[in-house]
Structures are given as C-alpha cells and as structure tokens.
C-alpha cells in the first residue's frame, strides 16, 4: 500500500500501520458477521447474533489493550473485539456450524459465547451481566499478584439494570481494581428502548455515584473510543482503579436471528442508523488523512473476504462433536 508517511497524524500514538490494521479488523468483523447471518438464513447456522454497528467501538477498545497480556470478559456482541484479542474467523464459523473445533465451548454453547484461554478471553455464558463480577475477580487476582495487567469487561446498556452490574462497579471502586467497564450502548435491549431501561441520558452518568471516572464516547468514532479506552487502561495500569466507559453504538441488525427489529423500530430510525455506519466513517476518515489511498479499502475488503472463504472451507469440512464426549467435563476428570 502506497501511503504517504507524511499524512497528518490523526491519533498521536498510533502508527499508520496500526490505523490500517484497525480498519482491517473492523472490515473483517463486519464481513464475518455478514457471513454468519447468511449461514443462518441458509438454515446452516441455527442461531446468530450480530455485532454490526459496534465494530468501531470494539476495535477502539481492543487496540488500547496489550494483546496476550491483558484480559477480556466479553459479551455476545463482541465478535470484532475477540478477534482483535486474537481469535480468528475460523473459530467463529466452527461455533456457528456447531463443530467440535469451536474453541469457545466445543459447540456446547450457542455461537457468541466467547472464551479462549490462549487469548485471555474468559469463558462466558448467557446470563446478562454476570461477567461483570468475574472481571472484578480477575482484576482482584491481578492486583493481589502485583501484575500490571488490566481487564476489560463489556455489556449492553440493558445489562446495566442488573444487580450484578451495580455490585461489580461498586466493589471495583472500593478496591481500586484495574478493570474497565465497557458499556456498548446501542439504545435497545432486544425491543426495550433506553428510555424504559433507565431515566438518564448516559450510562456514564452513573460513574460519579460509584466514585469512578466515567465517559461517554461516540462508539461510531473508532479513534475517540481508542483515546478514551487508552486513558482508562493507563489509569488502571498505574493502579488508579476502574473506569466506566460508555460507547454509544448502533445495532444495525436485529437483536438476534430470532428477532425482527422492524416490529418495534420505525423505518426512519432504521434508515437513519445505516447512514452513520461506523465502517464508512472510519474509511472516509482514513482516506481523508491519507492513511488509506484509493483502492486500499477495496484491497483490504478482498483480503478479508479471502480469509473468510478459507475459514469457511475449513469449518465446512470439520466434524461435529462426538456424542461420546457429551457427558465429559462436568468435573475434573481422572
């Protein structure tokens, strides 16, 4: 890629390679997400949950972390984020198709239930907001052992209504733990709008009540999220405690493959959302800054497409789990 090295710096601490890589990760996440929805419509993937519209926020946060060092306790919309942490398209296609090689759970869980020891991604289940407390525990271990690691945990704005969320933020603030509470606020919890979920405009309004720094950022602005996440991560690493970070996102697709958001959102609302697609925004931004030249975006897209094709071929050929294993791993064996 012929990128002028003299392009204006649009993020002080990111190199042009990093910026391109960020864009590439967003595209990869989007294309894989689209592929999974296609598999679902084809009847091959019984369940799919989409992160479309959250990619910029996830890449922004992911790049603020030290891969292989920091930890993540994600939620089901974090397809792009777990890939920034090191997972691969193949992993997710294995999960979607219910293959034994699904690294998250060996196809025991629905797709979207991430977990990977290799990439410091903690195993997650379905109950909303339980993961918040696990992240606080992970951060407790970091602090106890004197490690300079940071853990990020994510949840939707709906999840902030759960008691576990409150208990987790409060505990982390009391003990000044190195944890970042990321709220991906897409203004809906399935069909329930934010106005029925809370009486405040911003989840970040809750930070002061916990004695915790907090910020609301435009989750469609990858670099803004990166900057805010970076600040939070640095603070946590310095031993100065947790941060509540709200990224305002859009849920471009329905809640899941079992939902149809046209039944409770207006056509206008849906159309307007699409006009602000974070991928397009970032592409324009990088092109404007000369980080991407003409044709680069296309090249990236094609490269991602190829990765996904190869992954799909592998997943297609992979075997389902052996029924003989179904009763294993309830307790430690042997």
């Amino acid at each position, binding site marked *: 890629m012929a990128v002028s090295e003299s392009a204006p710096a649009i993020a002080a601490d990111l190199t042009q390679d990093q910026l391109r890589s960020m864009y590439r990760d967003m595209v990869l996440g989007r294309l894989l997400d689209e592929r999974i929805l296609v598999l679902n419509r084809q009847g091959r993937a019984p369940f799919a949950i989409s992160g479309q519209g959250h990619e910029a926020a996830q890449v922004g946060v992911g790049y603020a972390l030290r891969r292989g060092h920091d930890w993540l306790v994600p939620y089901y919309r974090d397809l792009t984020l777990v890939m920034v942490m090191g997972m691969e398209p193949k992993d997710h296609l294995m999960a979607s198709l*219910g293959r034994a090689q699904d690294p998250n759970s060996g196809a025991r869980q*629905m797709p979207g239930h991430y977990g990977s020891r290799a990439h410091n991604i903690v195993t997650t289940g379905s109950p909303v*907001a339980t993961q918040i407390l696990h992240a606080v525990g992970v951060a407790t271990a970091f602090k106890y052992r004197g490690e300079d690691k940071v853990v990020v945990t994510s949840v939707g704005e709906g999840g902030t209504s759960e008691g576990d969320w409150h208990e987790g933020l409060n505990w982390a603030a009391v003990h000044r733990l190195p944890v970042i509470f990321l709220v991906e606020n897409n203004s809906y919890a399935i069909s*329930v709008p934010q106005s*029925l*979920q809370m009486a405040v405009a911003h989840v970040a309004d809750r930070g002061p009540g916990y004695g915790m720094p907090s910020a609301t950022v435009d989750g469609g602005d990858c670099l803004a999220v990166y900057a805010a996440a970076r600040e939070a991560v640095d603070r946590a690493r310095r031993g100065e405690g947790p941060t509540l970070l709200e990224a305002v996102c859009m849920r471009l697709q329905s809640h899941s493959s079992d939902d149809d958001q046209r039944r409770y959102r207006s056509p206008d609302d849906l159309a307007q959302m699409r006009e602000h697609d974070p991928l397009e925004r970032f592409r324009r931004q990088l092109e404007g800054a000369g980080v991407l030249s003409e044709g680069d975006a296309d090249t990236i897209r094609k490269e991602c497409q190829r990765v996904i094709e190869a992954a799909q071929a592998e997943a297609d050929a992979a075997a389902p789990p052996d029924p003989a*294993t*179904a*009763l294993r791993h*309830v307790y430690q064996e042997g």
Partner: protein
Amino acid sequence: MAQVTYVEAIRGALEEEMRRDDRVLVMGEDVGAKGGVFGATAGLFQEFGEERVIDTPLAEAAIVGVSIGCALAGLRPVAEIQFLDFIPPAMDQIINEAAKIRYRSNGEWSCPMVIRAPCGGGVHVHGALYHSQSLEALFAHVPGLKVVIPSTPADAKGLLLSAIRDPDPVCFFEHKALYRSLREEVPEGEHLVPIGKSRVAREGADLSCITYGATVHEVLTAAERMGEDGIEVEVLDLRTVRPLDREAIIATARKTGKVLVCHEANLAVGVGAEVAAIVAEECFQQLDAPVMRLGGPEVPAIPFAEPLAEVYCLGPEKIEAKLRQLAAY
C-alpha cells in the same frame, strides 16, 4: 371451541383474565411492544396499554420483587421471566420473599402472583446450556410456592387462569417445544383446571409412567408403541409438581405395581426423586418391581450441537427402552 396452540392458549388466558379483572398486570422483558420473545403476550400491550403491560428493565430480581410489591398492595401481577434459565437472579425474591410472606406474617399478608417462564429444550431447539434448563426442582422443594407445568394447550389455559386467581405465588413453567407444536381444542371463556390435580393421560394396567410437561408426549408415543405389543402403560401427567397429587401417584402405582418416573430435568434430587420416594414408601406391598427413574443426565443442561443434545434428551426411544426394562422385571 377453537383449535389453538399452547402459546395461543396462554395468550388467550392472559387476555381473558385481564379483561375480567383489572387487578391483573403483566410485566417482563420485551412483553410489551414486541409481545414477548415467544409471542405469549402479543397484542396485550395494544389492548391494555403500558400501565398494564410493562416492558421492564433487564432485571429479574426486580421483575419478581416489584411484582411482590404489587401483590402486597392488592394487584394480581403476572411476571414473565424471559427464559427459565434466567430465573436464578430472582431466586431470593421467590424463595425468601414470595414463598414466605404468608407464613412469616402469620397469615396477615399474602402474595398472589404468577411467575411465568419458558423452560426446557430439545435436540432441534438449539437453545444450548442457557435456553434449555428445567429448574422446577429448585422451586418444588420450597414450601409456600406452587409449581405448575402444563403439557397441553387446554391445560395451559385452564391452569394459568387458576394460577392467576390463586391466593398464593405460583410458578408457571411452559415448555418452549410445546408452544407451537401442538394444536387442540381449548374451551373458550371460563375454563379452570385445578392446581394440584394430575390427569391420567392414558390408561393402562401393566405399568405406570409418571411424568409432566413436554415429556408427557414422548411418553405417550412410547406407550403407544408398547401398546402395539400388548403392554399397556398408564401415563400420569402430574400437571403440578408442587403440591404433588399424592393420591393419584399412589393410585396408579398400586394399580400397576410397576412405576417409571420420567422428566427432562436433571435426575439427582429432582421431582422424580420425590415421586419415587413417595411410591417406595406408600406402595411397598404393591410394587412388583423397583420404582425406576429416567431423566436428564449428570450434565448442567442441553448442549448446542445436535449430537450432544441427543445424549441429553429423552425422546420416545429411550423412554420405551426403559419401560420395556421395567416390564421385563
């Protein structure tokens, strides 16, 4: 009488009861504009408005706790927990509060409310570990609660009406595999099926199979097959797992002398254990074979991938095999 599905029967019962009694409110996640993730409350929001059909915050303890407060203040709330798997955050409100309110106040206060939740799974349900659980044993253990698990559309309606009118808290668990798979005649209007009374779903003289919920249908299929070989299985549909219909359990056990208890939930310390213990204690003289149980294996819930789910799930074949084992004893 109309031919309706199980979920339509539930929706219909809610609608009728809300028209009849303005103390009845419905609340839960997505029960409003969306009409519930399974459509059990479809149309209610449009008819009764946001004051009576409340889209709640994502907080199960609150859904139950606020419902308790409504009940204490004279309303008749019907709380929906989106999936039974997500009821544990509300356990404290259910076990320590709802169940104990009458007893702890020496009868001065009561807590008439219903907690509805879809339960169970199946090989093709793909709900995986957290959209498939059958947790009724946790509630069936608790004095102060009633636990109802209907197996047919007509029972779903009749038991839900009874549950809403019941003076005490009722857990009402609906197997999601039944929602749309069954269609039968359901009486219109006032159709009350009493809580605590089981139903003989099939008569038979040779063996008894005691079961409930979606498993009833699998057992009936197995029983039909056995019938072809001249072995007549009596099938008892418990309908209510707390309080249990002891008389009917004992009656069928004494009649046939051979009992299999069958459910989708995990076996250990489950409802089946209680039924088996009752049979063992009360029918010692009449039993011709040990009381047997068949249920969910020792894994947390039903896995996602079909080959794994099959290991968990019962299905008519496994049930038939077990019944034949019992018959041969």
